[in-house]
Structure formats: C-alpha cells, structure tokens
C-alpha cells in the first residue's frame, strides 16, 4: 500500500517536471476553428489529413510522416506523388485511419476546414490538430491556408516568400497572356466531362482564381449556384451555353486526354466553336478540381504556360 502511494507521488513529480519543460519551450498559440491550440515551435513529425495541408507542408520545407489519399484516388494527388513517395498513407476514401495516425506519433496534425467535430475530438487527443478558421470555397483560400499552417509550423517568413514567388509568376504569365491573346478572346471555363454531359466548376475555385489572375476571363455561364463547387451535369441540349474561347476540361481520373477524346465523339460537343478551334485543354482533374496549395498553384501555372507556348504561335 505504502509502496504504491510512493509510486503515485513519484509519478506526479515526473509529470510536473515534464510539463515545466513544456512551458520552457517557446510554444505557439494558434486560434483554430475549434478553439485555441498550443503547438511546440519545434515540430518534427507532421501528419496531414488534407491535400492542401500536405501541399503547404512540402512547400514550407517539411516532409510529413503521414498523409491521406486524395478524393478519387488511392494515393496522394499525382502532382505530389514524386515528393511524397516516402510518406506513408494514414487513410483514404474510407476515412482517416486513426490507428495509423497514432502509429506515426505526430507532433502536429494539419486538417482541412471541413473536418467534422467528431473527428477533431479523436485527432486532437493524438496531437494538436490545426483546423483553419476560414470556411468554404474561396479564391484566396490557398494563401490564407498557407499562412495559417505556416504559423503553426513556425515558418511564417517562408510562407511570405512562397506567396511572393507565386504572385510574381502569375504577373509574368499575365503579361504573356495579355500580349498573345486579344482581349475579347480570353473567355475561359473549367469543366468536368461526364458521360451524360458537362459540369461547370465555380469561378470561386482555386484553379479558376489562378486562371483568372493570369488574365483569362473565367466564367461559369451563370450555371453554378452560390456556395456550390460545381453545377449539375448539363443536358447535352444545353451544351452550347458553355461555349467559350477556351475550355479547360478535367476528369477525376488520370486520363484527361481520354475524356477529351470521349467528348469529341459527342456530336453536341464537336459542334461547339471552342472544339472547332481546338481550344479545349485537357487538364488533370486531381490538380485542377480538387487540389489547393502553393505547389498546386505552380503546377497549374505550368499548365497555363504550356497552353500559351503550344496553342499560340
């Protein structure tokens, strides 16, 4: 009896000593969607449960120790696969595998703004879980999220450099676009091609925002309801309403080019002026319709630059 009480006292002393170490380190206090979270300024093991968090972490110079598969895939988004080839997956479409997250002993978890509270309750018991306060689809979301994660990872200076680099590149491409494409031929829309027709993506979307900033005039033909990520699949009879100077066509799989071929076999699509002019650009759906972050921004800018170089003489 006496022995066990002694053990108990010793344990308390140990806990006290450990927590005083914690106070001594310079902690970062960050306001998240689910309240204030304290993070050590020396995080090493990062787990991301969000493509945007993974992108930001890599951009800020970290290699996470866990990530989840992207929507519609069985791995991280393909534009990040080269960087993330050593990052183990801790979840996929069936959800986050909590045990796999625990096994990575993370110091911090980067989560999306849409993380449900029940999941937060679980994850926050494993490590400080960072959920952005800003919600919804927003053109500037990638900048906000980068700064937010950078604050938690103590790399705020680096984040500003990245934002400056991307903005610089956008401005560069904008002069190129304005020089090469006449002002009345810069209309563009981002579509997802479905067997029964097309879905238009909202202009609020990250990739559309980048496209807009490089000088394209991005429209959704008034088809996307406010707050929705995309329209419903349009009837083929209404396809002419999305005719534009440029169409960026995405599919959820890797075969955006296959989707373009499929679309072109549809007589309703082949009739569009944009198809006749060969101004339909197949793009990767994972990158253009479900990714976000500075590395994604650069990859999208690569695609746009490629269009200018190959489609315009």
């Amino acid at each position, binding site marked *: 009896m006496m022995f066990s009480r002694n053990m108990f006292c010793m344990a308390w002393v140990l806990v006290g000593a450990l927590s005083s170490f914690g106070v001594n380190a310079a902690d970062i206090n960050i306001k998240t969607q689910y309240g204030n979270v304290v993070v050590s300024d020396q995080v090493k093991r990062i787990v991301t449960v969000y493509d945007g968090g993974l992108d930001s972490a890599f951009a800020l110079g970290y290699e996470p120790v866990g990530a989840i598969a992207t*929507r*519609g*895939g*069985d791995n991280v988004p393909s534009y990040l696969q080269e960087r993330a080839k050593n990052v183990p997956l801790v979840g996929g*479409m*069936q959800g986050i595998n909590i045990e796999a997250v625990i096994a990575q002993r993370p110091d911090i978890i980067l989560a999306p703004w849409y993380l449900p509270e029940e999941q937060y309750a679980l994850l926050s018991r494993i490590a400080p879980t960072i959920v952005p306060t800003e919600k919804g689809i927003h053109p500037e979301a990638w900048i906000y999220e980068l700064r937010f994660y950078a604050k938690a990872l103590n790399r705020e200076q680096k984040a500003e450099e990245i934002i400056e680099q991307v903005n610089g590149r956008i401005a560069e491409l904008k002069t190129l676009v304005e020089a090469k494409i006449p002002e009345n031929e810069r209309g563009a829309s981002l579509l997802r*091609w*479905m*067997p*029964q*027709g097309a879905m238009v993506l909202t202009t609020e979307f990250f990739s559309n925002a980048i496209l807009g900033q490089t000088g394209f005039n991005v429209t959704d033909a008034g*088809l996307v309801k406010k707050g929705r990520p995309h*329209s*419903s*699949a*349009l*009837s*083929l*009879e*209404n396809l*002419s*309403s999305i005719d534009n100077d440029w169409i960026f066509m995405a*599919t*959820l*799989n890797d*075969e955006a080019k*296959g*989707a373009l*071929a*499929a*679309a072109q*076999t*549809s*007589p*309703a699509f082949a*009739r569009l002026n944009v198809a006749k002019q060969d101004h339909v650009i197949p793009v990767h759906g994972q990158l253009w319709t479900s990714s976000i972050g500075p590395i994604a921004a650069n990859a999208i800018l690569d695609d746009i630059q490629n269009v200018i170089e190959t489609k315009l003489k």
Partner: protein
Amino acid sequence: MMSWFRTPPAQRSVVSVFMPVALLLAFCCVSSLLLGAGSVGPNASLQVLLGKGTSDAIFIVYELRLPRLYIGLTAGLCLGVAGALMQSVARNPLAEPGLLGVSAGSAFTVAVALTLGMSLSTLPIELAQIGALLGCFFVIGVAKMQGQRNDPVRLVLAGAALTSLLTAMTSLLLMYNEQAADEIRFWVTGSIAGRNIEQLTRVLPSLLIAFVCVLYVARPLASLALGERVAIGLGYKPSRIRLIVVLAVALLVGAATAIAGPVIFVGLVVPFAARALVGPDIRRTLWLCLPLGPLMIITADVFSRLIAQPTEMPLGVLTAIVGAPVLLAIVRAQRLPTL
C-alpha cells in the same frame, strides 16, 4: 364504350386495347421530339419537323432527340417483353428480368472494366451484354445442377443469390476505386441521353435472335401456363421452353442494359399493366407489352428532361416515379390481374 370497361380483360379483343395504347405511344414519341431541357421549345422543334428552323434546332431535334427516341423505344420494348416472359415462365408475378442475375451481371462487368481503367464514355457496348449473358448462364447452370430443371422457383432463387453476390462484389470493387464509383454512379441510374444510332445497331443481332425465340416460344408458353402436364400432353418439353425463354430474356435485358443502363421497374410494371388490360394469356400480353414498355420509358424520359432544367434527372429515378403509381393503381383495383 361502357361495355368495353365491363368486359373482363381476357375477353376484350387485343386490337381494341392495342390501338389506343399505340396512339398514346405515338403522342409521347412526338412530345419527346418537341420537348427538351434546352432552349429549343415545342414551336421551334415543330418548325424543324416541318422542314424549317435554325441549324441549332435541327441539330438538337435530329441528332440529340431522335436517337434518344429510338434508344428509348428499343429499351422499352426489350424490358417490357422480357418482363412478361419472365413472369410467365417463373409463374410468379413478382419475377422481374433483373432476378435472373442479368442486371447484376452487366453491372459487375461494367464495374470491373471501370476498375481496370476504362472510362464509361469509351466502354464497348457489348460488355454489358456479355455480363448479362454470363450472369444468366450461371443461374441456369446452378438451377440445372440441382437436377430440378422443372422448378422455376429454383431458377428465381438462384438468380436472387447470384444478384446479391454480384452486387456485393460490385460494391467491394467500387469501395476500393472511388474513381470507378464516381463513373458508375451515373451508369446505374440508367439514361438514354447522348447515345447514338450506331450503339443501337450493335445490339440489333441479339434482338433478332430474341425475336425469333419469342415467336417460337409464345404458343408453348401459353400451354405451359395451364400446367406442366397439359404442356407435355400437347407435345411440348417444359424444360426446353424455359431454357429458350431465359435465353431470350437475357438477350433482351442485356441489350436494354447495354444501351440504357440498368433501368429499373419497367420489367415489373409493364406486364402487370398488360395483364390488367387484356388478361393473363401470354400471347395477348406480349402484344400489349410492345407499346407499353416504350410508352413507360419515353414518358419517363420526357419528364426527366423537363423537371430539372437545364440539367436532367436520371432515367431510372423517373421510371420508378412514373411506374409506381401505375402499379399502386393496379394493386388497388378490385380484381388483381393474376397469372
């Protein structure tokens, strides 16, 4: 006119029922050319049919709505006839063509193809049909292995078992391949939009075979309805009749699934409606199924375009919405049209 309503269904002349239904179908076909989810309204479409109209309108009427009408007619025809055959051979009013494992078979092959990296828009149309036939042959094989060929209940049970198995496997495949799941989500609800005539011509051979089978089997099937012994006494072989019927059903449903996806409910409702109109004799019911199946699909398709403009509703949802009230009305009728 009143006497027509008072006559028991089985004593009405087929022509007196067939003609009004066919007229109704003709009306629906014209509507399906005139109405759409797009900006080309009935007036503009009428101009096109009279040989005038803008190039946009001509394109929409002749290149989008007309192929869709043909596909709808064919799919409706297949499903209606297959339903009547199936209920008759199983002697069970709840039997529907999907019970043979046909729909589940084609859904499974389509899911496998999508998982292997094919895309729905480039999928060969024969694939769904092959899946349907494989599913059906498997069911026949199992029912035969029992040595109880003469028991239609076993056929339906084996079909139900295979359907559950294949549905589970399909779900499993799609669980692990979300991209395929995204694509098949649209396929399973069925649609006759965006098809072209070329797809129709590719299922025509199997339709011809099925047609010959139905011609051959209609009379023996009617005697089979009077009982196994009567059929044998008249010189028919019940097991062979069943085999031919099942083959015809698989060909018909396979063709319908290949061109329109697994459209539900048509195979169940149409034979019921036909029996309510002309009685249980399969030779009479089949005649009525010819216009009733297309009528149901085309009505549903026209609604599917009008409800959610500028987009379209999935056809499978609309066939259920159109078909359920019909079936409920039949259920509430004083005399249930039994087999």
